[in-house]
């Protein structure tokens, strides 16, 4: 890691390069984005290897989740001109190390900024790959990549940035926002939360099967539950739970085989610290007692098998903290509408998933709860919907990106007005008098007839209007 002096010199160099105007050119931006696409194509195998090494991710899961579709539009109306902010800082995360690095990077470049990208040290193989390959595919004077841990992050946060984009935990998000406050740096925080899946009664067995498949993949197939938009827990009516659990068991076996660790289709836990954290969630005897499936942990391989729990105590950590792992609690409700109050008494999550065909529940879910987004009858997939903004609210985040929203998030929308020298209203200017006052009132009310009448001397002042006693 460089010294602070070196870092500051580097950043100074980047600002200098930015001020030359190169990064604003459309041709430069296109060439950079092409470079990144080429990187993805040429290094695909290496990327899969690195993901396997860091997370034990199956390459199809990796491909499905981390292939990126850059879509940029440089919008310019006569009145609002988007311009780059300058020098931006992106903090990536470890669970989707390619997607969460490249997608914001693409947005920042498309908007014409110079970028520093700080990769997560918890996914070292991926970080190393990105740090070594990105410089070969993009303009090094404008894009720099840093590896390293909290010390590097702190050093970077001391500097002044024109924008900071952070993906990670709420706890660290607060630190980033506090550091940004010193320089009045605008920030986008992509955090997480406990994303619930509200599962209503579904009459058709086809629908039920589809729902369960999507739920299972939306938990265990999403980096083993280590995703900000993974399903954290389920809310369902008491009478449906046993069927739900049975169906889930069947689907889990179908998807991951009898011995999931051998399927190589589920990611492992990222490191020992998180493994122990998850192990700890299950230590509480009341929580342990609520396990109905799975529950075995392999510390050597950092592997936890898909686990289902029914009605662990609501005060237990597993129900108060974001799980971020393959443990799926199901909470029973008397009736499904109770889910709304349940959700409203908790912090706003990044996503709410609702499996239902009941239109009234759909409407209530949208209008009576708050979350980053809502998805009906599926999970995770909103990440691929480029026309929708992706971001949280409250504890789940500040700001948004994806598609055009990425471009916007790294731009300043400058408002331009042009006026001509003709048509100058003389009554705008002092010295003011009752006559000008009348004209102004008409003008401001777009009362053109009134304006004409006043000019012709045919309109009396409005009775009761305040007229200061001016001597003019």
């Amino acid at each position, binding site marked *: 890691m460089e010294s602070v002096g070196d870092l500051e010199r580097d950043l100074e160099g980047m600002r200098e390069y930015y001020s030359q*105007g190169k990064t604003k050119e459309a041709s430069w931006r296109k060439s950079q984005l092409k470079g990144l696409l080429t990187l993805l194509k040429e290094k695909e195998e290496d990327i899969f290897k690195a993901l396997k090494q860091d997370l034990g991710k*199956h*390459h*199809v899961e990796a*491909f499905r989740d981390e*292939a990126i579709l850059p879509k940029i539009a440089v919008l310019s109306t006569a*009145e609002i001109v988007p311009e780059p902010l300058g020098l931006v800082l992106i903090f990536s995360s470890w669970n989707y190390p390619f997607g969460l690095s490249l997608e914001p990077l693409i947005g920042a470049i498309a908007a014409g900024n110079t970028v520093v990208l700080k990769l997560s040290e918890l996914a070292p193989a991926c970080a190393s790959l990105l740090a070594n390959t990105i410089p070969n595919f993009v303009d090094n004077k404008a894009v720099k990549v840093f590896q390293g841990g909290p010390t590097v992050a702190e050093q970077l946060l001391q500097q002044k940035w024109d924008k900071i984009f952070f993906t990670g935990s709420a706890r660290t998000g*607060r630190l980033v*926002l506090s550091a*940004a*406050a*010193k320089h*009045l740096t*605008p920030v986008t*925080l992509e*955090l997480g939360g406990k994303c619930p899946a509200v599962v209503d009664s579904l009459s058709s067995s086809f629908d039920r099967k589809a729902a369960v498949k999507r739920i299972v993949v939306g938990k265990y*197939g999403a980096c083993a539950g280590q995703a900000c938009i993974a399903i954290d827990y389920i809310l369902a009516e008491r009478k449906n739970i046993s069927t739900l659990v049975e169906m889930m068991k069947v689907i889990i076996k179908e*998807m991951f*085989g009898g011995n999931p660790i051998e*399927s190589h*289709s*589920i990611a492992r836990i990222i490191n020992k610290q998180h493994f122990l954290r998850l192990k700890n969630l299950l230590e509480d005897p009341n929580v342990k007692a609520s396990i109905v499936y799975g529950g075995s942990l392999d510390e050597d391989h950092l592997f936890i098998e898909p686990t289902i729990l029914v009605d662990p105590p609501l005060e237990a950590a597993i129900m108060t903290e974001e799980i971020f792992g393959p443990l799926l609690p199901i909470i029973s409700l008397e009736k499904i509408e109770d889910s709304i109050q349940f959700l*409203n008494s908790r912090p706003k999550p990044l996503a709410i998933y609702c499996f239902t065909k009941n239109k009234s529940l759909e409407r209530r879910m*949208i*209008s009576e709860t*708050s979350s*980053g*987004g*809502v998805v*009906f*009858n599926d999970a995770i*997939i*909103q990440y*691929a*919907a*480029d*026309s*929708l*903004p992706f971001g949280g609210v*409250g*504890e789940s985040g500040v700001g948004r990106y994806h598609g055009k929203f990425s471009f916007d998030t790294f731009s*300043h929308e*400058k*408002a*331009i*007005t*042009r*006026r*001509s*020298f003709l048509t100058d209203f003389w009554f705008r*200017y*002092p*010295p*003011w008098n009752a006559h*000008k006052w009348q004209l*102004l009132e008409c003008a*401001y009310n777009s009362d053109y007839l009134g304006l004409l009448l006043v000019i012709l001397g045919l309109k009396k002042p409005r009775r009761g209007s305040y007229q*200061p*006693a*001016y001597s003019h």
Partner: protein
Amino acid sequence: MESITFQLLRDYSAVGFGANRAFSYRFTRKSNQTRVSFPKLIRTSSGFKSCSATLSLMVEVEEKPKFDADKTALLVKEVRKSFNSGKTRSYEWRVSQLKSIEKMVEEKEMEITEALHKDLSKPAFEAFISEISQVKSSCKLALKELSSWMIPEKVKTSLTTYPSSAEIVSEPLGVVLVISTWNFPFLLSLDPVIGAISAGNAVVLKPSEIAPATSLLLSNLVQEYLDNSAIRVVEGAVDETTALLAQKWDKILYTGSARVARIVMAAAAKHLTPVILELGGKCPAVVDSNIDLQVAVRRIIAGKWACNNGQACIGVDYIITTNAFAPKLIHSLRHELEQFFGKDPMKSKDISRIVSSSHFARLVKLLDEENVSDKVVFGGQRDENQLKIAPTILLDVPEDSQIMQEEIFGPLMPIHTVEKLEDSFEVINSKQKPLAAYLFTNDELLKKDFVQNISSGGMLINDTVVHVATEGLPFGGVGESGMGSYHGKFSFDAFSHKKAVLYRSFAGDASIRYPPYSPEKQRLLKALISGNIISIILALIGWSRD
């Protein structure tokens, strides 16, 4: 053992014409605090239609209880309870509140103008143009457009989520805090509040204590006209603001200085509260020679001295022009200034005074700095008793002088000359990004270059200040001049959460998403993501290029 310390806070905010001062003594005891103020009797000037209500409030000796943190927490809790009940979400509620604000401004126009005059000696015309009419049109626009703003925005979906439909739903954030300022105390309090209400939030407003008459009026009017269960005003100064900032808000909109903005944002960071910061900066006016000089100069004057006497975040801070053109420009400025404010501008009623003695002292210090005071080419008169400083023009003060480094916020106008006008870009870019940048020219190429190379919150070609009244444009800064924006629909958006909603059906369940994973699934996925129909067909039938 109690200890009592006296802090004599001399507040020189003149109220009305004449030397009226209010002294507050703060007694601090370890156990409790009381603030007692002993204002002198206020004389109102003869040429002023006085209102007995406002006269009596000034004479009252008030013992204000300390607004402590517990009380603040309770207030926020009450307001939040109101929000949670859902009442602020309905279209009807929002419309009723907006209509009430409209009614309030109509019925109390006189009181509002008087309060602004008390706080700032603001001419009635300025009060009307810059504050009252703006609030009215803000309300009108919101009332007219609200139903369409509230409609969810349908968005297209792509092949990757097929079959699906999607929309973006605007929902209120919850309970928001608006911290206002003293220079346009009425507008900058109500405009954000209008935005917050139209987005369906509950709102707490903290007006500036440096404009006390307006602050008190706002407090009374909101109480009288609006739904107090969801809309409240908290008056006060540093203590009250600190107590408010310690609470959890769903959004904060702050208008004021960059220094305090950092404090606001740091407090907001603890709760992950998003903020809008409307700050200021040194807004430059670049003046070319090939223009209609009289019109340009009038507009510059309108954007400086006729705009709260330079005390405006978007006011023209300084001028840049060529060496060759400067004399002509100065000549025209002098002429038009006399037309506007008479031969003795200190006597003109059409110009605001300096808001407080501390700001007065600050401005005089800028003016009297060595190597600056000798650059005055017009004006320079000052009257401490009346808190007046005449429109003053300076020519080519040193670049490193205070007046060229910090935001002036007063009636001093430095003119900086350059060889050719393109050199002005360097001057502007060497400073922090301002809230607004102005250019007077007929040269199309210069206009283009200006827009491309200068970064500022907003820009206006061939006029000053009026861009903020342009419907359809966001008003906000960048860098040191702020973050976020509002006005018109942008106000509605500023106080909303744009919730992404995706509807999927159970049909069309693509098994390629699910484990067990296979090379075939990967090929198909790749093809689907590329969107290339040939690849998709090839992958489906088992052929592929990989």
